[in-house]
């Protein structure tokens, strides 16, 4: 081989390597921008809200006096609304996903449904608010209650759960389905003993992503008439006397953290800005801990799963 052709090889390699390296740098910059923005946001909010981040803030109701105002009703409201959302969206979403992926015949109709479900995930949340206003509040007469709010957000989360369920099921190799069928399993046994346990980690991730979106939603809840000022808690679900469980809380009026934040931010008094920042920190803490739980559960479920 002549030295000139060796030289040509050398030049070609170093030129291509340069392009590879350049892309790595661009990618790294992109990540840095995203991370720095996130850290700056959180840091700024924590610093601003720091004076209010105490027990008193968590255990007090909203108040015209910013010094004693708290977020008790808001965070309890957020938790209860999320509880309703999970209870409604997860079983329905998983069932729909399993049906579409494992039972439904693959034809133009199922393709159409698939496209629409995927599109539903991108519908602006305010549209769900309008739907809920007409359906839950006026048609079913559920009022401006925790139940209405939870179901509204469930509509929002549902497409995400359906889509991730389908993707999780699709990731399971056919060899495992055939192995189960070859053992004489029925379709339901195959789904319940194999598909659902193996895909639960991924489905859970989808559920959490959906909930993370829902927990910060304001628009659809304002649409159905969430209160911005509330000074009492819903009735406790656990009762001291028979039958010990009460569902009265479902009918209670409510507020949630993002609405409380919005309310404070729009106040003229500067002290309320501190309250808003502190509420924001709590909201982010709730979201992050939910994500953390999801990562932990996924790790636990996926441990030892491979194919």
């Amino acid at each position, binding site marked *: 081989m002549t030295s000139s052709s060796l030289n040509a090889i050398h030049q070609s390699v170093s030129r291509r390597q340069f392009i590879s390296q350049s892309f790595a740098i661009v990618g790294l910059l992109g990540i840095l921008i995203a991370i720095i923005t996130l850290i700056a946001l959180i840091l700024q909010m924590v610093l601003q809200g720091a004076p209010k981040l105490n027990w008193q803030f968590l255990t007090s109701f909203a108040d015209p006096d910013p010094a004693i105002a708290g977020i008790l009703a808001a965070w309890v409201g957020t938790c209860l609304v999320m509880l309703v959302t999970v209870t409604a969206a997860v079983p329905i979403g998983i069932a729909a996903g399993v049906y579409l992926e494992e039972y439904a*015949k*693959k034809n133009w109709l199922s393709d159409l449904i698939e496209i629409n479900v995927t599109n539903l995930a991108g519908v602006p949340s305010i549209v769900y608010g309008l739907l809920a206003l007409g359906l839950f509040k006026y048609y079913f007469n559920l009022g401006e209650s925790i139940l209405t709010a939870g179901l509204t957000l469930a509509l929002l989360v549902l497409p995400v759960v359906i889509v991730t369920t389908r993707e999780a099921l699709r990731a399971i*190799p056919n*060899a*495992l*389905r*055939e*192995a*189960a*069928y*070859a*053992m*004489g*399993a*029925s379709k339901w*046994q195959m789904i319940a*003993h*194999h598909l659902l346990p*193996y895909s639960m980690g991924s489905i859970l991730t989808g559920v959490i992503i959906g909930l993370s979106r829902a927990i910060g939603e304001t628009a659809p809840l304002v649409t159905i008439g969430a209160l911005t000022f509330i000074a009492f808690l819903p009735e406790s679900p656990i009762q001291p006397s028979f039958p010990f469980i009460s569902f009265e809380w479902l009918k209670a009026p409510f507020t949630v953290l993002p609405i409380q934040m919005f309310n404070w931010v729009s106040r003229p008094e500067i002290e309320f800005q501190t309250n808003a920042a502190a509420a924001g920190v709590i909201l982010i803490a709730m979201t992050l801990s939910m994500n953390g739980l999801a990562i932990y559960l996924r790790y636990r479920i996926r441990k*030892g*799963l*491979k*194919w």
Partner: protein
Amino acid sequence: MLETILQTTPLHPKVEAANLNFYYGNTHALKNINLILPDKQITALIGPSGCGKTTLLRCFNRMHDLYSGNRYEGEIILDGSVNILSRRLDPIEVRMRVGMVFQRPNPFPKSIFENVAYGLRVRGEKNRTTIADKVEKALRDAALWDEVKDRLQDMAFNLSGGQQQRLCIARALATDPELILFDEPTSALDPIATANVEDLMTQLKQQVTILIVTHSMQQAARLSDYTAFMYLGELVEHDRTEVIFNDPLNKQTRDYISGRFG
């Protein structure tokens, strides 16, 4: 078209395929197959890639029912009485009597014990002692017990490829099937693991009828009592293995055996 010629009629036919045709949509994949699987014997299906060996094997436990557009014609009679292909027969019922071992080991991502116990659980067996006994027996029959008895709760994926395949055999054995289908069971295994699985199959012959698809003619010659040669969806020749390998009637069979094509 070549006719199927059976020189020796086996004494106890366990399964009998008669005028079997199979279609993937419009593709006529199996053409007028007539095949007898003698009881407690190993029958090997050989032939070049795409000749329909695996397609034929998967008719015996109605695996094709899992995908739409597939259609059977003809009969596969089990024990002289039940037509496996009957539309009125639930394929689950067939699969409860006919076990299957796949080309790649496909244990469930569960413990070794749970893998073998699965068939029993599907059948609603609740008694723990019964399950434990049957799991042990199946693992012994699959020559795996000594290697795994101390770690039955380990994940099946921690086993080597050959052990995983024997685990899959144990899983199939646990429910006492009458016929086991092997779809190229050693093609993903190294020579030592292959030898183990072959030994195992030779022993299993005492309790169960075996149908095996194999790419390796040496394997067919070593293992099987009967061999069927398939080509382009047709069963070209079917006879005792020594006849097929030493003195086949058909020219195509002779060419394939001597390595002239395929």
